[in-house]
C-alpha cells in the first residue's frame, strides 16, 4: 500500500471519528445492504411493523420490543435486550430490560411501586396494525389495568403514543397506575461496546461516553424535566457552612430531550417528549449502576405517587396517594439519525426542526441584529434606623447616560433589562405586583423618559418582572397565596439575608396569573412595551391549593398563560425558561453556558445553542460572575450566544449592607471598555455567520469546530498552547472565523 493511499484511508477513518466525537471501534453492522435484504432478514421473532424510505421498524409482539433498521446500511438499534443475554441480573431486571413498555402501579396506600412488564407478568394484548405502525391494547388481568400504546413510523420519526383515555383502571381502590417507562432500553449499550455516547439535557447539554466504567458510578443521572418539583421534594438541599450556602444547584433539564449515539453503526436517535413532558423525568444509567452491564437512557412518566403526610409538628405520618392521576397523554418521538447526522449536533438539529414544525419559533425574531444585554441594578434596600432605606445603584438618569455612552462608543444595539426598578428593590420587590417605579431612582417620570431615550438609541428596555418568588416581609398579604406542597405544608426556602430574614415563599401559579393580569393592565396604562419575565419561567410543580391537588401540568398551563398574557402586546424576554414556554418569547436571557459537571459526564456540548441558533436570539449568563473571562468569551463565540453584563453606576460596595450580596461586580466605569470590545468582536463573528443555524459541531482536544449553514466555519482553541485545527495554527485561547470561500 502506497503512503498516499494509506494516508487517505487514515484520513477517512479520522473524519468518521471526528464527526462522532468519539474514538470509534470497527463497525460490525455497517456494511452496505440492500433494502430488499433487510426486509427479507427480519430478526427472529420480529416482524415488520412499518417502513419508510430510509428506515424499517420491526416489532416483536409478545414484548412490544422494537428494532429500528437503517435500510441503506442495515445498521440496527434495539429497544430491548435479547433473551439470550448472559448477564447475571436478577429476574426483575431481566423482565424490565426485555419489555418494550414497563408500568409501575400503586397497591392501596402501600409506599411502594411494583413493576409489571410484558415478559413475566400475565397480560393480554390486542393488536391493530395499520399503514405506518400499529396499536396495541395491553391488559393485566391480575390488576385490572389496561392501557393502549400506538407506535408509528413517519420518515425517521418513531412516535409512541399512550393516551390517558386509553388507560383503564377496573379496581382503582386496589390498583392504580403510577408510572410508565416507554422503551427504556432503546439503543442500550453493553459495557460501552458500541462506542458513542448518551446525550443528557443537563444545562446547555452534556454527553456521557459509552465505555466500560469498571463500576465507577453507583447511581444514575436523574433529572425531572423542567427542574425539581418543589411541591414534592420535602427537604432543601442546601449545604451550609455557618450561614453560607456552599453548594450550587445543578442545572435544570430545560428541554424534554435525550439521545443515544452509537459509534460502531453510525446510528443515533434524539428522543423528544411532545406530551407528558411536565410529568416526566429523564434517567440515564451507566454500566455498573445496579450491577447491570448496560448503559441505557429513558424517560419515566409519573401519573400518581405516594407521599408521607405529617400529622403532627414533631411526629406522626400517614401514607397518602395523590388525590387523582395527573392529566396528560404520553407522546414521545424517537428521531433516528445516521451517518454524519448521528451525533449531538444532528440530535439538536432534529429537535430544532421538530420545534419549527410545532411553530415554537414563529414569534421570535431570528434575524434580530446583534446586540449586547445590559442588566441595570436599580434599587436595593438596606436596614435603616427605622424600617429599611433605599440604596440607589443606578438611577434612571444614570442608566440613560450609560446607554448614551455605550452608543457613543459604537455599541449600536442593546437589550436593556432593569432589575430592582420598582419600590422595595431587587430582593424585597419580589413578586412584581404593580407598576411602581422606585422614587429613589427617579420615579415614573424618570423611567418613562429613560425608556423613551433608550428606544431612540436602539435599546429595548425590559422591566424585570418576577411573578413567582415571594418575600413575605414586603408582601404580607400575599403570603396567604403562598404555594403549598402536596402535603399541604407551605413551601419555604431559607433566606440568609441581612435585611429580609426568615424564608422566601412561592406564589401559587393561579396567583402568578392573577398578578400578570393586573400587571398587564398596569403596564398597558403606563406604556410599558417590553418585559423580562423571571421566576415562573424556571418552575413546574405539583401543589395543593384550597385542599385541592394540582399537578405539574396545571402549573405549566398557568405559567404558559402568564407568559402569553404579558407577551401578547409587548416584547417578552424569558429568563432561563423551560422549553414549553419558548413559544411565547421574543428572546431568551440568562441561558446556561455549561452543565452541572457530573462525574460521569465526558464533556458538555452546546446542544441548546445548536437548537436555538438561527431560530431565536439568546443571551448568556452574566459575564460578571466568570472567573475565566477569556475562556467564557470563547464559549460565546462557540455557541453564538450574546453577552450579558450586570451593570450599576454605583460601586457595588454600596450593596454590602443589603441582601444582594451576590452582586459584587457591576460598576459601569470598570466594565465600559470590556462591553465595547466584546460587542465589537462578537459583532464581527455574528456578521460572518449571519446569525444562522449551526449545521455541524465537533470538539477535538482543546479545539472546537463550528460550521454554519452559510458555510462559515469557526475554529476555537480553548487550550493554553498553540493548536492546529482546520489547517490553521491557533494561538492559545483564540479563534478564527473562516468564510465559505475560505477567507
Amino acid at each position, binding site marked *: 500500500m502506497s*503512503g*498516499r493511499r494509506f*494516508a487517505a484511508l*487514515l*484520513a477517512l477513518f*479520522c473524519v468518521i*471519528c471526528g464527526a462522532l466525537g468519539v474514538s470509534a471501534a470497527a463497525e460490525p453492522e455497517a456494511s452496505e445492504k440492500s433494502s430488499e435484504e433487510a426486509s427479507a432478514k427480519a430478526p427472529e421473532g420480529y416482524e415488520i411493523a412499518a417502513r419508510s424510505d430510509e428506515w424499517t421498524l420491526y416489532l416483536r409482539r409478545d414484548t412490544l420490543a422494537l428494532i429500528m433498521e437503517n435500510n441503506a446500511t442495515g445498521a440496527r438499534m434495539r429497544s430491548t435486550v435479547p433473551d439470550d443475554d448472559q448477564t447475571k441480573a436478577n429476574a426483575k431486571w431481566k423482565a424490565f430490560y426485555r419489555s418494550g413498555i414497563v408500568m409501575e402501579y400503586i397497591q392501596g396506600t402501600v409506599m411502594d411501586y411494583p413493576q409489571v412488564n410484558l415478559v413475566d407478568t400475565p397480560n393480554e394484548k390486542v393488536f391493530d396494525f395499520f399503514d405506518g405502525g400499529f396499536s396495541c391494547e395491553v391488559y393485566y388481568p391480575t390488576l385490572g389495568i389496561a392501557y393502549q400504546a400506538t407506535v408509528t413510523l413517519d420518515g425517521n420519526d418513531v412516535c409512541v403514543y399512550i393516551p390517558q383515555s386509553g388507560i383503564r383502571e377496573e379496581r382503582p381502590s386496589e390498583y392504580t397506575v403510577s408510572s410508565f417507562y416507554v422503551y427504556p432500553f432503546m439503543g442500550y449499550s453493553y459495557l460501552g461496546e458500541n462506542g458513542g455516547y448518551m446525550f443528557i439535557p443537563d*444545562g446547555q447539554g452534556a454527553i456521557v461516553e459509552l465505555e466500560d466504567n469498571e463500576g*465507577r458510578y453507583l*447511581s444514575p443521572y436523574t433529572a425531572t424535566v423542567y427542574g425539581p418539583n418543589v411541591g414534592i421534594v420535602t427537604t432543601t438541599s442546601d*449545604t451550609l*457552612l*455557618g450561614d*453560607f*450556602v*456552599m*453548594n*450550587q444547584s*445543578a*442545572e435544570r433539564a430545560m428541554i424534554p430531550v435525550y439521545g443515544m449515539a452509537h459509534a460502531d453503526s453510525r446510528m443515533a436517535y434524539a428522543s423528544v417528549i411532545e406530551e407528558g413532558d411536565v410529568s416526566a423525568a429523564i434517567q440515564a444509567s451507566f454500566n455498573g449502576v445496579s450491577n447491570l452491564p448496560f448503559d441505557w437512557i429513558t424517560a419515566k412518566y409519573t401519573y400518581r405517587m405516594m407521599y408521607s403526610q405529617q*400529622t*403532627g*409538628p414533631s411526629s*406522626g405520618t*400517614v401514607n397518602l396517594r395523590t388525590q387523582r392521576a395527573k392529566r396528560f397523554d404520553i407522546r414521545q418521538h424517537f428521531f433516528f439519525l445516521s451517518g454524519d447526522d448521528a451525533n449531538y449536533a444532528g440530535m439538536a438539529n432534529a429537535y430544532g426542526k421538530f420545534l419549527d414544525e410545532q411553530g415554537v419559533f414563529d414569534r421570535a425574531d431570528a434575524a434580530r441584529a446583534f446586540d449586547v444585554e445590559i442588566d441595570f441594578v436599580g434599587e436595593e434596600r*438596606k*436596614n435603616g*434606623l427605622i424600617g429599611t432605606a433605599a440604596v440607589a445603584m443606578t438611577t434612571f438618569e444614570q442608566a440613560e447616560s450609560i446607554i448614551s455612552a455605550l452608543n457613543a462608543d459604537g455599541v449600536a444595539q442593546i437589550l436593556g433589562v432593569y432589575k430592582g426598578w420598582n419600590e422595595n428593590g431587587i430582593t424585597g420587590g419580589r413578586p412584581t405586583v404593580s407598576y411602581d417605579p422606585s422614587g429613589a431612582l427617579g420615579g415614573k417620570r424618570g423611567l418613562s423618559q429613560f425608556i423613551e431615550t433608550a428606544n431612540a438609541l436602539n435599546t429595548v428596555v425590559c422591566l424585570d418582572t418576577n411573578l413567582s418568588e415571594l418575600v413575605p416581609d414586603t408582601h404580607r398579604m400575599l403570603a396567604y397565596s403562598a404555594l403549598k406542597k402536596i402535603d399541604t405544608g407551605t413551601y419555604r426556602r431559607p433566606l440568609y439575608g441581612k435585611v429580609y430574614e426568615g424564608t422566601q415563599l412561592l406564589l401559587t401559579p393561579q396567583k402568578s396569573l392573577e398578578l400578570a393580569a393586573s400587571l398587564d393592565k398596569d403596564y398597558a396604562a403606563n406604556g410599558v412595551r417590553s418585559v423580562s419575565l423571571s421566576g415562573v419561567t424556571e418552575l413546574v410543580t405539583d401543589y395543593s391549593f384550597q385542599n385541592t391537588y394540582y399537578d405539574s401540568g396545571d402549573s405549566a398551563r398557568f405559567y404558559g398563560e402568564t407568559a402569553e398574557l404579558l407577551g401578547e402586546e409587548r416584547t417578552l424576554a424569558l429568563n432561563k425558561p423551560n422549553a414549553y414556554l419558548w413559544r411565547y418569547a421574543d428572546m431568551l436571557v440568562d441561558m446556561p453556558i*455549561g*452543565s*452541572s*459537571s*457530573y*462525574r*460521569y*459526564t*465526558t*464533556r*458538555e456540548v452546546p446542544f441548546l445553542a445548536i437548537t436555538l441558533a438561527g431560530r431565536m436570539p439568546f443571551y448568556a449568563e452574566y459575564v460578571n460572575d466568570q*472567573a*475565566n473571562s477569556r*475562556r467564557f468569551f470563547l464559549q460565546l463565540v462557540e455557541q453564538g450566544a450574546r453577552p450579558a453584563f450586570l451593570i450599576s453606576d454605583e460601586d*457595588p*460596595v454600596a450593596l*454590602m*449592607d*443589603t441582601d444582594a*450580596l451576590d452582586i*459584587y*461586580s457591576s460598576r459601569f466605569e*470598570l*466594565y465600559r471598555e470590556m462591553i465595547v470590545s466584546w460587542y465589537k468582536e462578537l459583532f464581527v463573528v455574528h456578521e460572518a455567520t449571519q446569525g444562522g443555524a449551526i449545521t455541524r459541531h*465537533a470538539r*477535538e*482536544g482543546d479545539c472546537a469546530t463550528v460550521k454554519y449553514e452559510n458555510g462559515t466555519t469557526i475554529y476555537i482553541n480553548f*487550550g493554553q498552547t498553540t*493548536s*492546529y*485545527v482546520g*489547517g490553521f495554527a491557533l494561538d492559545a485561547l483564540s479563534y478564527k472565523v473562516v468564510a465559505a470561500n475560505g477567507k
Partner: protein
Amino acid sequence: MRKIRIAVLLLLLLALPAPAAFAQTPYLTYTRSGDGRMSRTQTAYEPIRTMVKFGGESLKMPSDIRLGFDGNLYICDSGNKRVLVVTREGELVREIGGSKTLKSPTGVFVTNDGNVYVADENGRAVVVFDAQGEVIAEYGKPTHPLFGATAPYKPVKVVVDRRGNLYVNSTGNTNGLVQIAPGADGGAFLGYFGANTTKVSFITRIRKAIFSDEQLSRTAGIVPTSVVNMSIDAKGMIFTVSRTGDVNMLRKLNVAGKNILQPDWYDNYPAAVATAQNGNIYVASQNGYINEYTSEGEILFVFGAYDDGQQRTGLFKSVSGIAVDETDTLYVLDEQSGAVEVFAPTEFCNRVHDAFQLFNDGKYAESKAYWTDILRMNSMFSHAGVGLGEALYREGDYAGAMTAFRNGGAAEGYSDAFWEIRSDWLHKHMGTILIAAASLIVCAALLKRLNHRVRFTRFIQPALAAVADVPIVRKTSYGFTVIKNPFDAAYGILRERKSGYAAAAVLMALYYALYVMRKYFSGFLFKTVPDGVYNLAGDFAAIAVVYLLFVTCCYLVSTITEGEATFQSLCVGTAFALIPVLFGTAIQLALTNVLTYNESFFITLVDVVAYGWSGLLLFLMILYLNDFTIKKTIATVLLTAFTALVFAALAFVVYMLVSQLIDFVVSVYGEVVYRFVRT
C-alpha cells in the same frame, strides 16, 4: 504529498481525546468582604478532573496524599496497605509497601532524596522506603524515659525536616508530636514538639476550686486536642490542624514548637493541611470545604461542598488529604469515594495570587494595577481594598487610600490615612483656627464688658427663667445637684419631692438616644457594630429592663434592710446618677468622628471617668436615700445583684414553661386536624 501529510496530521489531532469540561462548579466560593463577613466571589478553583483509577488500580479508604519532589503524587492507600505513586494525570508509576511490610498505613511523606516515610498505625512504627521501594529503616516506639513508658505510640502521620528529623503524630498521645532524630536502631527521641494547649472553662475553674483531689480525679481530665494532620513547608515550618473548634485549629510551629500563626477563620473538622510555594496555606475540611489562607493566616477563599449523592465533580464525601503543586493546582483526596479531585486555579485566583506576591515583596506600586483589576471583578474583596489602600497611601493619595481601606475593612490603614488627612487639614487651617479662636475670646470679653454697661441680656433672661421654671425642665435640671452635692440631692428627691418619675424618664430617654447614636453613628474606627445592623427595640428593651430590674431589686432589698428609699426616689436617683455617663457618651460620639487609633486613649479615658463617676454617684444615692452606712450599702448593692440574677432565672423558667405549653397546644391541634379532618 506534503499537503496530504499535513491533512493526516491534522485529522489525527482532531481524533485526540476530549478535554475536561467547562462546567458550572457544584459549589460556591466565598471570600472576606470589607465588612469582615464572608461574601460570594468568583470561582477561585475549578474542578478539572476526578481520578479514581490509576492504571487499573483503585484506592480503598486512602488517608493521606503528598506531592513528591519528583512531581508525582504519593497516596497512602490505607485499605490496600500500600502507597501508590501516581503522576498528576493519574497514571500509575509504582506501588510501595503492601501487606507484608505495612499493617495499616495512614500517613505518608516524601523527602527530597526520594525516601518515602510511611506512618503505620497498627504496625506501631514509621517505615522508611527508598526510591525503589525497599525498606531502609523503621522507627518504632522510642525507649527514652522522657517519652513515657505508658505513652502510646501509634503513628498516624509523619513529616520530616531537612535534617532528617521525624515529627510523628501518634494517635492518643496528647503530649505533642514525637520528634525523632534519624539514626540506626530506631533513631533518637528528641522530645515532644508543639503540643496543643488546653482550654480551661469557667466551670472547670469552679470545679477545681471546690472539688477535693479525690473528686477531681474522678472527673474527666482536661487533655489537649489531638493533631489530625500536618505538613511542612520549604522553610521547615510545621503546620498542624486539630479539631479545637476555634482559630487554634491551624497552627504554624517554629523550631521551638511555638505557634506563630493566628488565623482569622476556622473550620470545625479540619482533615489535612498543605502549603503552596507562595506561602499560602490550604486546610481541607473533612466535610468537603477547602480553606485557603494567606501566609499570614488571613482567609482568602472558602469553597467546596459535601456530596449528598449528586456525583458532581468537586464535591466530597469525606476529605482525608490535600496536596498542592507549583501551579497552585490542588489534589484533594476523598477517603470514602477513593478519588482524587483535582482543582485548577482560575484566572481570577491567579490574579489574586500575583497581586499578593507583589504586595508581599513590597512592590506596592506594581501591585496597584492588579488590585484595581481584582476590584473590578469583585468590589467587595477586602484584601484588594487593603492592597489598593496601601499602594495609594504610599503614593500620597490619602483620600483614595482611606476609601480603599474603608471598603477593605482595614481599620488600621484607614486610621493612618485619616491621620494624614487630618494632619494636612490642620496644617492648612491652623492659622484660621487660631485667629477664629482668638476672635471668639475677644468677642466674648467685649460682649461681657458691654453687657455690664448695657445689660442687653435682660431681654432674654425672663425667657430663660420661664423655660427653667417649666416643671419638667426644673425637675430634670435638678439632676445636676446630684453631681454637685449628692447628699442634698438625695434629701431633695426623697423629702422635698424636687424631682419625679417624669424627670427620670426624660433622662433615661436621653440616655437611650445617646446610646443609640454612639452605637450606630460613631466614626468607622470606633464603631462596635457592623454597618447595616440596627436593633432599636432590642436596645430599648436592654436599657429599660436593666434599669427597671436594678431599681426594683434595689427597692426590695432596701425595704427588707429597713432603708428609707422609696421606689420613686430610687428611680430618680438612679437616672440622675447616670448623668456623667450621658455626658461621656455625647463626648465620645463627637470624638469618634475626629480621632484616630493614635488617640484612642481619650475614648477609653472618657469611659473610665464617666462610668466611674456614675458608679460612685449611684453608690452615694443608695447610701443617702436609705440613710445606710457604707457597709450596709455595699451589702445592699451585692444583694441587689443577687436578686436580679434570681429574677432573671425565674423569668427564664417561666418562659420555658409557657413555650412548652404553647407547643403542646399546637401539637394537639395539629394531630386533630391531620388525623381526623384532612385524612
